[in-house]
Every structure is written in structure tokens, then in C-alpha cells.
């Protein structure tokens, strides 16, 4: 059957061209900020410091700051009952962008891929209870710390556990990719004393494990824990001993110094004129911010 060869070659050409067309259409559709700001650039590898630091200019031209968050992280960034994304970090961001004269775009992302999303240009900043750490500083350009936080252990009220030592031989769970995991790693003895450490996708699942007694304790941010416990009237206890003191900051790409500085300055201005304290009061009943 000689003519099958001809047909096969035609089909092969059709296939390669259809793959190319599909690939091209994936390339031409871009996120709104990237398309506006990349018009004059051919390569967008903005992690290289060699790229001119026009990060602030690009965002101003685009007129939008894209904020990446895990929209299931109350009280920092989550959905309210009108299905809008709200939160303490969101209120801060709205105020900052208002002062910068630009719009705020909220982009829900998968928290595990937060730095990937940042570096690939899909988002301009990570602003979601993002704890500052030495490892993260190597990949992300942080603002000054704007809030204090501790990694604490939560147990059931009736468990009789009052200290970290009581958790020997027990199961602890935490959110994968969070600073809770880092905090635990730096307390090797405590970690070794546990029977099991379970990494979960989010904090609500962690609470489910605690409730269902699949886990005996959760390691998470004190701010988030306190919010959950009070909002839901749960009989959980937060142990006095914390595992790590840490601070939240806003994360930018390593090369985006001008953008980072601008947001930092806005936060400082908000601290100076009392706006920061006001927003903090609304959410936490007191001023938990630390930026000067």
C-alpha cells in the first residue's frame, strides 16, 4: 500500500503544526500585567539582577499590582460569605495600592508553588502571612517585617497536654510548605520525640485531624490558630511554649528592589499616620503590627 506513506507524512505534518498552534496560543495569552509590561521586553527572567530594576515602573504602567495568596488562609486572606477575598493582608494591600494610585488584583495560587508563581511573573508579590526566614530570603526579596507571629502547638482541651514534652510519642500535623515545617525541623529533639509528623495541604484539614483524633496536635501560626479557635468556639488549647518567633513580610522577586522599596515605604507611612494600627484593630482588636 504505497499511498499510506504519503498519508502518514501528511498526518505527521498536521500533527506537528497543530501542536505548534496549540503551543503558540498558550504563549500569546498572557496575564494582564505581564502583557502590558512585557511589550517592550523579549525575555522576562526577572530573577536575574542584571535585568534593569524597572519593577516599580512596570507595575505603575500596568496600573495593577498582582497579589498572590492562598485564599484559604483566614484571617490573612480568605473568602467571606459573599465569596469575596478578604483578610488582614488584603486590607493592608488595598490601602498600599490606593496610596500608590494603582489597582490591586488578587490571584489565588497553590501555596506550595508560591515562589514559582512569583518568579514566573504570574504574580508580583506574595502577601499572605508570609513568614520571613533565612532560607526564604535567599529566594525572595522581603519588605520589613510588618507583623509578629509565633509557631505554636494546638491540642484538644481534654487531652491533658500542657507542655511540648507531653507530646512525646504523639502525632503532630502541620501545613506542608509552611514555616511550621521549618520551625519543626529546627527543633530536632522535639521532632524526634514525636511518633509521627503529618504534612497536610492546609490548616483546616489539620483541624479536622485534631477533631477526629487522627492527630494529637497541630503546629501552626499563633495568629491563625487564635482566629480559628475564637471564630468557631472550639475547646482547643494553645501551649505556652512556642517553637519559633517569626515575622510576616511581603515577598517580591529578588530583582524587584524598586517595587519592594515603594511598598515598604507605603507601609511605613501607614504606620506613621495610624492607618496600620486602625486596620489591625479591626481584625485583631489590638495593634499587632511591628513596622516603624
Amino acid at each position: 500500500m504505497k499511498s499510506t506513506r504519503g498519508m502518514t507524512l501528511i498526518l505527521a505534518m498536521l500533527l506537528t503544526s497543530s501542536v505548534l498552534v496549540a503551543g503558540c496560543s498558550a504563549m500569546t495569552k498572557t496575564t494582564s500585567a505581564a502583557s502590558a509590561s512585557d511589550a517592550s521586553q523579549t525575555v522576562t527572567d526577572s530573577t536575574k539582577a542584571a535585568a534593569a530594576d524597572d519593577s516599580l515602573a512596570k507595575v505603575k504602567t500596568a496600573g495593577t499590582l498582582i497579589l498572590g495568596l492562598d485564599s484559604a488562609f483566614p484571617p490573612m486572606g480568605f473568602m467571606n460569605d459573599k465569596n469575596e477575598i478578604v483578610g488582614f493582608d488584603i486590607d493592608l494591600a488595598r490601602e498600599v495600592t490606593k496610596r500608590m494610585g494603582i489597582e490591586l488584583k488578587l490571584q489565588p495560587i497553590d501555596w506550595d508553588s508560591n515562589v514559582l508563581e512569583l518568579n514566573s511573573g504570574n504574580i508580583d508579590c506574595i502577601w499572605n502571612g508570609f513568614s520571613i526566614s533565612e532560607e526564604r530570603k535567599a529566594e525572595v526579596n522581603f519588605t520589613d517585617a510588618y507583623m509578629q507571629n509565633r509557631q505554636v502547638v494546638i491540642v484538644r482541651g481534654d487531652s491533658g497536654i500542657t507542655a511540648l514534652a507531653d507530646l512525646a510519642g504523639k502525632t503532630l500535623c502541620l501545613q506542608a510548605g509552611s514555616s511550621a515545617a521549618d520551625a519543626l525541623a529546627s527543633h530536632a529533639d522535639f521532632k524526634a520525640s514525636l511518633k509521627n509528623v503529618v504534612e497536610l495541604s492546609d490548616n483546616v484539614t489539620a483541624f479536622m485531624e485534631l477533631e477526629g483524633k487522627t492527630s494529637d496536635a497541630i503546629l501552626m501560626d499563633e495568629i491563625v490558630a487564635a482566629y480559628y479557635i475564637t471564630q468557631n468556639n472550639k475547646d482547643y488549647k494553645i501551649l505556652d511554649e512556642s517553637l519559633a518567633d517569626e515575622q510576616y513580610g511581603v515577598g517580591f522577586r529578588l530583582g524587584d528592589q524598586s517595587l519592594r522599596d515603594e511598598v515598604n515605604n507605603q507601609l511605613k507611612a501607614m504606620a506613621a499616620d495610624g492607618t496600620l494600627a486602625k486596620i489591625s484593630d479591626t481584625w485583631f482588636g489590638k495593634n499587632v503590627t511591628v513596622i516603624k
Partner: protein
Amino acid sequence: MNFNVSLSAMDYSSMVSFLLEGTVKAVELFFLTIVLSLPLGLLVARLRLSKIMVVQIPIKLYLLIMRGTPLILQLMFFMFFPPLVLGIPVDRFTVAVFSFTVNYAAYFAEIYRGGIESIPVGQQEAAYVLGLSPLQTFMRITLPQVVKRIIPTIANESMTLVKDTALASVIGVTELFRNAESMKATYFSVVPIAVAGLFYLIMNSVVAAFYSRVEKKLNYYKG
């Protein structure tokens, strides 16, 4: 004790409407993928059967990689490799459609190939003798029979696709599963997850019913 399963604190209607938004996204993802990957799979199957090595070997490699690696990793690869390594910005939803399409086309290709190879070769010989071109033989004799045979398997894959749309959540697409997770955090309850499960079931019931009808229509002859 159930983890806050009561609906007292939940704004039920707004939760459901948010899940419906996610369902629409999932349905869009499903349709675009099916419409693109069914023809692409047929193309790939035809090339897989080719005797030209230069065509067959890359195709076999493509089939191996697409079926041999997790779809979730493929999604992440197509999402982050272009902007980080090639400097090409990509759109989330388009990446999801593209990734699902090339993945499912691989599976469909092997399904088609199984169907094509099950048709007795004597038919091809008879068609040749009767003066039909290879293309005519394929389109008018072989393919209709193949379609009838592979409907149950295609129905399987379609139902798997409906559920696989949940994987798009790892690249931030706001489809049903991701929306359900957000609602879970908002209301501190698993009810949204259960409702999402119900929505997936409803979608798949429609898919199953559709293929059942198609099978009946194609049943104008036995075998």
C-alpha cells in the same frame, strides 16, 4: 463528633453559587479538552501505526512520557517551565487546557489503536480489491466500526477527565475543587467538600447518560 457539619453559620446559597462558578470552569475545561484531544488522539494513533521509524519513534516516546508521568506534574511543568526557563509568559487556563489535551490525547490514541487493530485485516484487503483508497477505507469502513467498539472506554476516560479537572487547582485555576477548599476554610466545615462531590457526580451522570445514548444510537447492527 463531626467537624462543624451544621449549616447554622454557613451562607448556604452563597457557598453553592461559588461552587457553581467553579463547576462552570470545570465544565469549560472538560469540553475544550474533549473537543481537542479526541481528534488529536486519532491523529496520534494513525501515526503510531505508521511504518516510518522517524514518525513512530517520537510518537512512542510522547505516549510513554504522557502516560508514564503524573498529570499533576505535567500541569506544573507546562505552567512554570515556559516563563522560568524560556521567558514566555503563559495563561493559567490555557495551560490547563493544553496540558489536559496532550495528556488525554495519548490515552485516546492507544484506545483508538486498540480499536483499529481489532478490525479484521480482511476488510482492508477487500476494500483495496474493490478500489477504495486507504483514506476512504479508513474513514468509511474502519473508523465507524472502531468508534462503536471504543465507546465504553471513551466514556471511562471522559468520566476520569471530569474528575481530573480538580488537578488544575495546583496551577491556581479556580475550578470546583479549589473553590470547595476555599469554602472549607471560610466556614470551617466539610460540607462544601461534600457538595462539590455531589456536583462531580451530577456532571458525570450527565456524561454517562450521554455515552449511553450514543451507544444505543450506534447499535443499529450487532458487532
